[in-house]
C-alpha cells in the first residue's frame, strides 16, 4: 500500500477576520468527509489558516481507493428458478443489474430461506485520478457573506489569488475562475516571496521562512508569549480578551506585539470610554498596573517583523491620540448639557416608526415601573428613586459619547447622572436597566435597576409583538427572546412573586393606550403568554426537569415565575418517590372530570348524598385554607397529595355523573373547585404516570 501526503491551499485576498477560523474548519471537514466517502484511507488531517489562506494537509493518504468486495442479495431461490430448473427472468435481471451473469450466482440461506447472491469486486481507483474533485469542495464552501469580482460568476468569501494542490510532489490539476493550481504559494505580503513547495510536508516550515505562521494556534501562542514578555519587562498586567485575541490573530500572518503610550490627561475619561476606543476601534489591548489600574499605554499586534517598531508605535499613538481627543471633546460637551435638555431631545428621536419616539417609550416604562414598585411595596424613597431613574433612563442616548460609542449606553448614563447631581441609586439603576446585556451578563443588583430592567424589556417585547415583530425560527432581529429571558432571570434573582400575566397585561394596556399596532389586549396577552411559556420551558429544560413535569407546571397560568420554577423542582424531586404516580393519578382524575363542568359554581353541601362527598369537601376546605397562607411549594405539594386517600374513596363510592341533574351539577362543581386549586400548582393531567 502506497501513501503520499496531500496539501491543498486556497490563497485569497484578506478574509474578514471573524470568518477565518470557521472557514478553515469547514474546508478541513469537507476534505475529510470526501476522503471517507471515497474510501481513501489517510493518517491525519491538519488545518491551517491566515488572513490570506485556508489550507489542509493530509498525511499518509493512500494512493488508491480501497477495493470493495460486496455481496448482493437477489430474489429467493424458488423465484430464481423456473419449474424446469432454468434461471427465471427475475434471476437474469438481477444478475445483469449487478453487472454479473447467471454463472456468477450462488445460493445462501437467510432465516431458513435460500436466496440468490452474487459477489462483486470493485477495484479502487487511483487517488490521483479522483483528487481534481477537490475543486468542487472548494466551490461548495459556504460563507456568511459572499462576493463576486471582476467578470467571475463565482461567489466566494474574497477573490481567489492562487491555488496550491499537491499530492506528493505532483500538482493536482484543476482551475477555479482563472486561477490554475500549481505548487507555488506566497509568503508574507511584504516580508516574504512567492515560493515553490516541493513536498506537502514542507508546508509549515517553508512558509515560516517566508514570515507566515500558518498554524493559527501557534500564532496565538506567539502573540500571548509576546504579551507576557511586555508585561514582564514593564511590570504591567495585560488582560486578554479572548474575542479580541481571536480577531487580532486572524488579522496577521506574522505577529509582533508592540506598545505605545497616550497622554496621561486622557485617563480622566471614564475607563469604559478608553477601553472601547482602544479595543473596538483600534483592536488594541489596554494595559493595567499590577493592582488593576488602567495605565496610559496600549499594546497592538503588528503584521510584520521587529524592524521599525518605533515608527509603527508612533503612527499608532497618533491615531489613538486623535480618537481620544475626540472622545475628550465629546465628554466635555456632554457635561455642558442639562438632563432636561437631553430629555427634550428624546421627543424627537423615533425609537421605531410604528412604536413612536423614545420619549413615549420612556413614559410607558415609567408608568409600568411605578406600578411594579407599588406592587412590590417599595418604600417611598425607593419609589422615588425608581421613578426618577425611569424618567431619565434614556437621557444618555442623545449624548455625543453614546452616538460615537453606542455600546456605552447606560455606562455613560450612570457617569453623567452622577456628575449632574443625581442620587447614586438613580445613576446605578440607569446602568443596570440594560442588564443582563447578554447571555453571560448578571441581572441588576439594585431593586430600582431590576424594576426598570423588567419594565423596559417588557415594553420592548410587548410593543414589538403589537406591531407584528415576533421571533420565529432564526429570526429575532430585536433579540426579544434574550430580553424575555432577562425578565425571567431578574424575577428569579430577586425572588419577586409578581404575576407574569398581570405584568404583561399592564404593559399591553400601556402599549394599546399609545395606539401601537391594532391587536386587542386579549390577542396580545395570548401571544405573549405562550412566548414567555416557551422561554420558561427552555429554562426548566436547562435545569433538567423532566419534560412532562415542565408541561404540567406550564399547563395552567404562569403566575409567579420563582414559584413556578420551584413547583417544577418540587415535582422533579418527588417524581421517583413511592406513591408519586398514584397521587398524581388521583389529582389528575379530578382535573379530567372537572373538564365536564360547564362553569364553576358554588358547592351546596346540602345536596351531598354520601359521607365521602362530605369528607372530600371538608378536606378541600382545610387544604385550601392552608394553601392560602404563604406556604412553601414543598408544603403545598404535600398538602395536595395528602388528599389522595380521600379522593380515591370518593371515586370508589360516588358517581359524579349522577342521573339527577341537580346532584350531577353539584358534584361537577365540587370537582371544578378542586381542580382549580390543584391546577394552581400544576396541571397534573400532563404528568405521565404509566
Amino acid at each position, binding site marked *: 500500500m502506497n501513501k503520499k501526503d496531500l496539501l491543498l491551499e486556497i490563497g485569497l*485576498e484578506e478574509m474578514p477576520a471573524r470568518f477565518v477560523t470557521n472557514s478553515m474548519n469547514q474546508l478541513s471537514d469537507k476534505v475529510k468527509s470526501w476522503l471517507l466517502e471515497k474510501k481513501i484511507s489517510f493518517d491525519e488531517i491538519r488545518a491551517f489558516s491566515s488572513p490570506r489562506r485556508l489550507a489542509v494537509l493530509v498525511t499518509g493518504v493512500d494512493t488508491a481507493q480501497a477495493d470493495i468486495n460486496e455481496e448482493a442479495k437477489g430474489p429467493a431461490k424458488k423465484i430464481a428458478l423456473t419449474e424446469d430448473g432454468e434461471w427465471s427472468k427475475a434471476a437474469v435481471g438481477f444478475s445483469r443489474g449487478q453487472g454479473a451473469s447467471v454463472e456468477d450466482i450462488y445460493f445462501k440461506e437467510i432465516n431458513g430461506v435460500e436466496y440468490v447472491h452474487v459477489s462483486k469486486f470493485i477495484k479502487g481507483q487511483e487517488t490521483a485520478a479522483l483528487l481534481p474533485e477537490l475543486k468542487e469542495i472548494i466551490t461548495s464552501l459556504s460563507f456568511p457573506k459572499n462576493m463576486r469580482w471582476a467578470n467571475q460568476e463565482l461567489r466566494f468569501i474574497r477573490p481567489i489569488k492562487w491555488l496550491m494542490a499537491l499530492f506528493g510532489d505532483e500538482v493536482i490539476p484543476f482551475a477555479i475562475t482563472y486561477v490554475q493550481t500549481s505548487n507555488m504559494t506566497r509568503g508574507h505580503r511584504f516580508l516574504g516571496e512567492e515560493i515553490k513547495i516541493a513536498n506537502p510536508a514542507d508546508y509549515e516550515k517553508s512558509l515560516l521562512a517566508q514570515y507566515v505562521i500558518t498554524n493559527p494556534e501557534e500564532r496565538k501562542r506567539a502573540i500571548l508569549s509576546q504579551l507576557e514578555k511586555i508585561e514582564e519587562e514593564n511590570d504591567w498586567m495585560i488582560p486578554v480578551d479572548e474575542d479580541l485575541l481571536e480577531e487580532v490573530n486572524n488579522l496577521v500572518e506574522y505577529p509582533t506585539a508592540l506598545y505605545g503610550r497616550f497622554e496621561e490627561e486622557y485617563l480622566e475619561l471614564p475607563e469604559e470610554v478608553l477601553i472601547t476606543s482602544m479595543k473596538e476601534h483600534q483592536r488594541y489591548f489596554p494595559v493595567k498596573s499590577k493592582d488593576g489600574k488602567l495605565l496610559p499605554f496600549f499594546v497592538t499586534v503588528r*503584521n510584520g517583523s521587529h524592524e521599525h517598531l518605533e515608527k509603527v508605535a508612533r*503612527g499608532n499613538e497618533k491615531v489613538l491620540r486623535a480618537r481620544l481627543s475626540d472622545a475628550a471633546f465629546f465628554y466635555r460637551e456632554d457635561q455642558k448639557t442639562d438632563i432636561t435638555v437631553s430629555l427634550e431631545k428624546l421627543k424627537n428621536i423615533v425609537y421605531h416608526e410604528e412604536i413612536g419616539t423614545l420619549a413615549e417609550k420612556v413614559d410607558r416604562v415609567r408608568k409600568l415601573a411605578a406600578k411594579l414598585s407599588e406592587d412590590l411595596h417599595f418604600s417611598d424613597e425607593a419609589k422615588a428613586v425608581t421613578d426618577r431613574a425611569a424618567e431619565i433612563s434614556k437621557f444618555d442616548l442623545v449624548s455625543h459619547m453614546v452616538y460615537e460609542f453606542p455600546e456605552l449606553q447606560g455606562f455613560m448614563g450612570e457617569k453623567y447622572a452622577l456628575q449632574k447631581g443625581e442620587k447614586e441609586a438613580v445613576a446605578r439603576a440607569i446602568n443596570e436597566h440594560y442588564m443582563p446585556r447578554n447571555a453571560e451578563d448578571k441581572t441588576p443588583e439594585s431593586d430600582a435597576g431590576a424594576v426598570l430592567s423588567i419594565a423596559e424589556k417588557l415594553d420592548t417585547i410587548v410593543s414589538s409583538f403589537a406591531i407584528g415583530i415576533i421571533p420565529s425560527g432564526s429570526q429575532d432581529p430585536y433579540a426579544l427572546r434574550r430580553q424575555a429571558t432577562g425578565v425571567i432571570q431578574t424575577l428569579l434573582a430577586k425572588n419577586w412573586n409578581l404575576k407574569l400575566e398581570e405584568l404583561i397585561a399592564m404593559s399591553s394596556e400601556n402599549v394599546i393606550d399609545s395606539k401601537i399596532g391594532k391587536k386587542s389586549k386579549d390577542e396580545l396577552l395570548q401571544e405573549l403568554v405562550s412566548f414567555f411559556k416557551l422561554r420558561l420551558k427552555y429554562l426548566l429544560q436547562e435545569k433538567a426537569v423532566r419534560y412532562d413535569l415542565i408541561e404540567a407546571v406550564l399547563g395552567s397560568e404562569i403566575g409567579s415565575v420563582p414559584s413556578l420554577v420551584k413547583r417544577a423542582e418540587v415535582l422533579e424531586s418527588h417524581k421517583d418517590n413511592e406513591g408519586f404516580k398514584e397521587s398524581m393519578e388521583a389529582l389528575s382524575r379530578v382535573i379530567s372530570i372537572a373538564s365536564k363542568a360547564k362553569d364553576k359554581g358554588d358547592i351546596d353541601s346540602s345536596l351531598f348524598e354520601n359521607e365521602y362527598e362530605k369528607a372530600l369537601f371538608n378536606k378541600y376546605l382545610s387544604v385550601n385554607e392552608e394553601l392560602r397562607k404563604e406556604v412553601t411549594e414543598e408544603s403545598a405539594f404535600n398538602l395536595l397529595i395528602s388528599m389522595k386517600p380521600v379522593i380515591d374513596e370518593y371515586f370508589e363510592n360516588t358517581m359524579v355523573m349522577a342521573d339527577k341533574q341537580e346532584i350531577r351539577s353539584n358534584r361537577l362543581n365540587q370537582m371544578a373547585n378542586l381542580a382549580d386549586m390543584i391546577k394552581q400548582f400544576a396541571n397534573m393531567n400532563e404528568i405521565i404516570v404509566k
Partner: protein
Amino acid sequence: MNIQNMILTLQKHWSEQGCILMQAYDTEKGAGTMSPYTFLRAIGPEPWNVAYVEPSRRPADGRYGENPNRLYQHHQFQVIMKPSPDNIQELYLESLKALGINPLEHDIRFVEDNWENPSLGCAGLGWEVWLDGMEITQFTYFQQVGGLECKPVSVEITYGIERLASYIQDKENVFDLEWTEGFTVRDIFLQPEYEHSKYTFETSDQEMLFNLFNIYEKEAHRQMDEGLVHPAYDYVLKCSHTFNLLDARGAISVTERTGYIARCRNLARKVAKTFYEEREKLGFPILKDKEEGSHE
C-alpha cells in the same frame, strides 16, 4: 510630500495603469462615489477605468474650522476599475510606495469593512486599509449600484487625502497641512470652512431648502421620463446635498428623515435603471470599442 504632489503622484500612478484622469464633477456631493463617473459608470457591462480628485461636502461635519480633524469639505482621491483587475491590491500598494510609504517600515493591513449606501441602493464588500492603525483608504468591490447587480464588478479605491497627508506630513492639525509650497490648507480653506459651517448651522433658509428639494426632485423625475439621464442625475445630486443641509440644520425630524432618504433612493434607483437602458439603446459603445483588443 505636500498635498499637491500627492495628487500628482497618484494621478501619474493610476494614469500608468490605464485610468482616464478626470476632473472633479461640478455638482456638490457627499462622496466621490456619487460622482456620475462612479455611480453611473459602475452600472452595466462596459469597461471603465478612471481616477479623479473629488471635493466632498459633508455639511454635518462642519466645525467652523476649529476642529483639527473634521471638515465641511474634504478631498477624496477616487479610482474606479471595471472589471476589477486581478492584481488590484498590488497596484494599490505600489501607489503607497510612490507616496513614499515603505510597507516594510509600517504596519499595513486590510481590515474587513463592508460598504452600504442605502440611499443610493449601493452595496459593496471590501476593506478599510490601515496604516499603523489609521484608516487611510476605503477599498470596495461593488456588488450592487442603484439597486442593480454589478456585472462585471468594479473596484473602488477611495483615498482620504487629508488623512493620508496628515500621516505623511506628520501633522496633528489638518489646517497645518501643506497644500503646495508656501500654502497650507488653512490659507486656502479656513475661511470657507467657517462660512459654510455658519451657513449650514445658522443662516441657511430652511424653507427655501425644503422648496428646492421638492423642485429638484420633480425635475429629476421629469428629465428621467425624457430619458435624459445626466441632467436628471445632476438634480438627484442636488436633492441629496439639499437634504444633507437640512439634516445638518436639524430641520428634519427622525420620522421625516426616513421619508427623505426613501425619496433619494427612489431617484437613484430610477436613474440607475434609466442609465442602463440608455446605454443599452446605444449598444454599450465602450464595450464594442474595447472588444477587438480585449484581454480575457
